[in-house]
């Protein structure tokens, strides 16, 4: 038991070092901005004043939210119906969802441009197409998140129960299925947004100035500013994900007053049914 505990701390420490060391180095690098031993926020103030920041960031956020929306609208009903009506097709869907992992970015770009050339310019000539590509790129992860969510509930029984009580499909989705698939859907949303905000290769090949593309262009002029921007972007992404988490977690909090909220949360924590990240991190 004691060795187990020690091992856990060592593992956690190593992992932390692995993740934190480069970040710490970056922060130091950006704060020193070339002058050893003297810290200043100069690089950060320069970064925020850099032309093109707002525009590229806005493009990236729009693309990310677009990709998220398309993913959820396409994938959630598909996975539910496949599990419900065509369980044999699960294997096929599973294999298809993995394809983007095996296809290089350049090939995807060529494929997309070749296939969609006939579509109007609004679609192929603007970052709109990036949203669609990111939906595909994120599919290996989003499909799995949603699928495991769907399979963790007793889908057939819940649907049968709802229908026997008079609920149509719209009602079933809004009141029964979506609330119970919340964690899977949220995970898929996170993954799409995070992937979209960080993707460089395809956006660059296609010539769209998303935030990562813009960042690389800045890097050539002033590496300190570029690193300062990266750290700011990291913070920004993190804030966006936290905001998403809050937006998606309003499930049980509206039933009763403040006191009721506390009781429900306490029960959830005790039974470990809703994993609370904070509780896990401390053990």
């Amino acid at each position: 038991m004691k060795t187990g505990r020690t091992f856990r701390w060592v593992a956690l420490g190593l992992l932390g070092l692995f993740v934190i060391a480069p970040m710490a180095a970056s922060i130091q690098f950006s704060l020193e901005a070339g002058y050893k031993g003297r810290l200043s926020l100069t690089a950060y103030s320069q970064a925020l004043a850099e032309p093109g920041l707002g525009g590229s960031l806005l493009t990236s956020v729009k693309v990310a939210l677009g990709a998220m929306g398309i993913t959820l609208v396409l994938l959630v009903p598909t996975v539910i119906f496949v599990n419900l009506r065509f369980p044999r097709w699960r294997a096929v869907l599973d294999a298809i969802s993995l394809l983007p992992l095996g296809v290089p970015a350049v090939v995807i770009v060529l494929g997309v441009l070749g296939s969609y050339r006939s579509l109007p310019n609004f679609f192929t000539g603007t970052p709109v197409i990036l949203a669609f590509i990111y939906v595909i790129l994120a599919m290996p992860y989003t499909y799995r998140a949603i699928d495991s969510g769907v399979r963790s509930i007793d889908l057939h029984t819940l649907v049968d129960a709802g229908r026997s009580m008079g609920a149509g499909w719209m009602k079933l989705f809004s009141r029964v299925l979506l609330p119970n698939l919340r964690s899977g859907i949220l995970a898929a949303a996170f993954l799409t947004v995070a992937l979209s905000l960080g993707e460089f290769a395809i956006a660059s090949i296609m010539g769209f100035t998303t935030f990562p593309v813009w960042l690389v262009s800045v890097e050539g002029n002033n590496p300190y500013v570029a690193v300062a921007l990266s750290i700011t972007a990291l913070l920004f992404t993190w804030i966006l994900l936290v905001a998403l988490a809050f937006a998606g977690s309003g499930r049980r909090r509206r039933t009763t007053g403040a006191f009721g909220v506390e009781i429900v949360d306490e029960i959830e924590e005790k039974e470990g049914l809703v994993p609370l990240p904070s509780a896990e991190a401390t053990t």
Partner: protein
Amino acid sequence: MTSEQVSAPTASAPTEKAQQASLPSRGGVVVELVNCRRTFGKVHALDGFSITIAPGELVALLGPSGCGKTTALRAVAGLEHLDEGKVMVGGDDITNVPPHHRNLGMVFQAYSLFPNMNAVENVGFGLEVRRVATARRRQRAGELLELVGLSSMAERYPHELSGGQQQRVALARALCAEPRLLLLDEPLSALDAKVRAQLRDEIRRIQLEVGITTLFVTHDQEEALSIADRVGVMRSGHLEQLGVPAEVYSSPKTNFVAEFVGSVSRLPGEVVAPGSVAVLGSRLTIPVSAGSALSTGTRVDVLVRPESITMRPAADGAAVVARASFLGAVVRVVATLPDGVEVVSTLPASEAYTFPLGTRVAVELSGDVLFVVERQP
């Protein structure tokens, strides 16, 4: 038409139960399945299945797994389509009506409560779908929770309820929107024995109180016999026998029913005269319904219930006690005949103590022959 037939559940007191049970009609609607067929690949889940359930009656469909009982229930619910045949409720043909327009209540095997809703929200879901105002909905759901004895659990979520409590909530939920028909799909099979027996009685009490026509599907014969007005024994997609529990138990129409319902001993015998069989040295009358057409001299298997067999210790007895299981008031004793045939008897616990395992016993048939079937060589 339906609203007056389904009485308010809280209106009648439980004391009326006995009276209601004996009334020829209890309100509710008549349900008919006519010549239903449903095939899954090569399996005939329903093979010309027909049944009529009287208003307010509780019919239990009983059978081994794969006999089609669940398919029949799901066809009534509209969750399974039929290849042929029709479903009539209260005289209306609802064969092609989608499930959410059928106005029925259904209780499933387990875990059918919506995990994101508490008990009272679950119970009120049917009314929520029908756009009933929140206050009225909560009031009605509260009444139903009271009916199943869970008023104090209204704010609990499914994962905070025991299995038995969850099924009570599911029952309340099924009844909340005053359905025309109640469907119970093995609602007790996931519960432990004690809770199962309690909830079984509870379901019957509530069903009588509400006066709703009910179809109950189970593979547990004790459950079926104890709860139902009539029991339908199913086998490979058709109804083998439909009758009141006592009739199905003591006058089975087929060999299958005789062996599936209750416990039997299968003893070798021979027809010695028309309608008469010799078995274990006794000469017994074959009931008319149980194969009296067999000709004299036919070698047969005679099926006998444990309560028709008595055993008494005897030094020259033909059988040896092989096993005994204590069941409270009675002991189930299994003795082996010289040719290896096992005889099962239930004896009062006080008597059974007089012969431990290995005792030689004389076996006597004291009651009726249940069924006689020609012996397969």
